[in-house]
């Protein structure tokens, strides 16, 4: 009998009869058992949705790092959304189109925001303490420039409205005398707000915002310088042109002076003052009993009656 020498018999012979392993004779080949591949070990995870496998203490910021449409198998929240059918609750999260359409903020949970802000905090600078109050800001920086920029999802980055620039100055900070203020207000018209006492100059006529800013500053400079000047023709303004009654330029004062010349006495200043106040009140305010009464008393005092 030929003794078949093959590797397995040699092994058996060498090892001895301690291992009594004989190959089972398979007449009909069975399907081989599941081979242990690497990926196969993770099958149990992929067969279940993530929500059933993830831990409660996981870092959600790593799970949902950026904006993403809602994924029901990853979000462990029992959310319902949408109009309910009759005698039914709102549709649940599985296959919910409304839930998937709406932008969610799952990538910006409070711990994530805190983490990201901490990371960018180093690029921020503190506001100077000296300029904490608005009075200080108005004192050191009376000129305020207003610009706008626009962000929208469109094919173009540009927005035509962004070229508009506005400058605001407080009238008091310009330190003009009475004539200067009056002239400036006439030049400026509606751009001055009498309640806040702010002059606002807006420009949008140039294509770029920097050009408009230049133009605003130029306008302010010109207006300021013009209002400081007194043109020779400004003296041609007659008394009938004045918007208010000025006692010093009026006939009433002339009358009082003539009276003084006539009597030869110089009246005390208080009497003249009371008279001038009474006359001014009648002109600038209404003619009511009070003003007329004051006028009567003042005249009687002057005439010593």
């Amino acid at each position: 009998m030929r003794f078949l020498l093959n590797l397995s018999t040699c092994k058996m012979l060498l090892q001895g009869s301690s291992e009594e392993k004989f190959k089972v004779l398979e007449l009909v080949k069975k399907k081989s058992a599941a081979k242990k591949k690497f990926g196969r070990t993770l099958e149990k995870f992929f067969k279940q949705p993530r929500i059933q496998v993830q831990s409660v203490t996981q870092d959600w910021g790593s799970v949902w790092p950026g904006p993403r449409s809602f994924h029901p198998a990853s979000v462990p929240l029992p959310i319902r959304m949408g109009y309910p059918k009759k005698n039914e609750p709102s549709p649940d999260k599985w296959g919910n189109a409304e839930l998937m359409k709406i932008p969610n903020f799952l990538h910006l949970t409070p711990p994530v925001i805190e983490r990201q802000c901490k990371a960018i905090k180093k690029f921020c600078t503190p506001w100077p303490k000296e300029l904490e109050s608005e009075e200080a800001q108005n004192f050191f920086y009376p000129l305020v420039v207003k610009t706008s920029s626009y962000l929208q999802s469109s094919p173009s980055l540009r927005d035509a409205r962004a070229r508009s620039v506005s400058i605001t100055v407080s009238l008091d900070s310009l330190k003009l005398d009475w004539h200067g203020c009056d002239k400036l207000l006439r030049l400026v018209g509606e751009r001055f707000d009498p309640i806040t006492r702010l002059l606002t100059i807006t420009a949008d006529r140039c294509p770029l915002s920097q050009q408009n800013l230049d133009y605003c500053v130029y306008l302010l400079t010109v207006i300021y310088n013009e209002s400081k000047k007194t043109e020779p023709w400004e003296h041609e303004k007659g008394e009938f042109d004045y918007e208010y009654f000025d006692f010093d330029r009026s006939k009433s004062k002339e009358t009082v002076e003539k009276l003084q010349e006539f009597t030869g006495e110089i009246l005390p200043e208080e009497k003249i003052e009371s008279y001038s106040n009474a006359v001014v009140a009648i002109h600038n305010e209404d003619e009511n009993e009070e003003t007329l009464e004051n006028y009567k008393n003042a005249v009687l005092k002057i005439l010593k009656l």
Partner: protein
Amino acid sequence: MSVGLKSTRLISLIRCCQASQRIVQPSLGYANMQDCSSIWVHESTPSPSKLLSYQASQQLLTVSKLFSTTHSNNASSVQEDKLSELTTEKDQAEFDKLYRSITLECRGHDKAVLASYSRFLTTAAKHLEICVDKIDTPRHHIIRYDTLKSAFVKKKHRVQYEIRTYFLIIKFLRLTSSTADTFLEYVQRNIPEGVAMIVTKYIV
């Protein structure tokens, strides 16, 4: 301590202004509107002669003259000392612009999205230590269309459409340009879909 200084354009500008015996508004070392040419001149190390030859410098000097104050004498001497310190310390540093306030107006078609975004904005502002002055939600604006349902005849049958725009206005106070740029970039990168933003800056 980060003071946020930008270039020495301001310092050289003040020097050339002082050289021509004009009083410059006390500026505390920060770029402001009076120093507009320093903002516009895109040079790393400008010389006074270059600045003077720039067109806007004439306007600048008249504008700075506008705000000359008699009681700036003490302040300006202090400023000079401070500025000389600053130049020796940080020669290549740049100056921050200052924003008195920045108003963010967000517009969207969904109120809930804007509400979430507003929560994000306020939380981010809190972490970056930015003062939130006002949060306003004006009434939404509605555009309604009444159109025919059918392409041909059937006048009695119509379809009505409505476009709603919801508003969210948040005002932040007292930001330096570094803080503002950082905050705005962060916030604008995370703006949700379908939301538009208008940023209005009031430069001090």
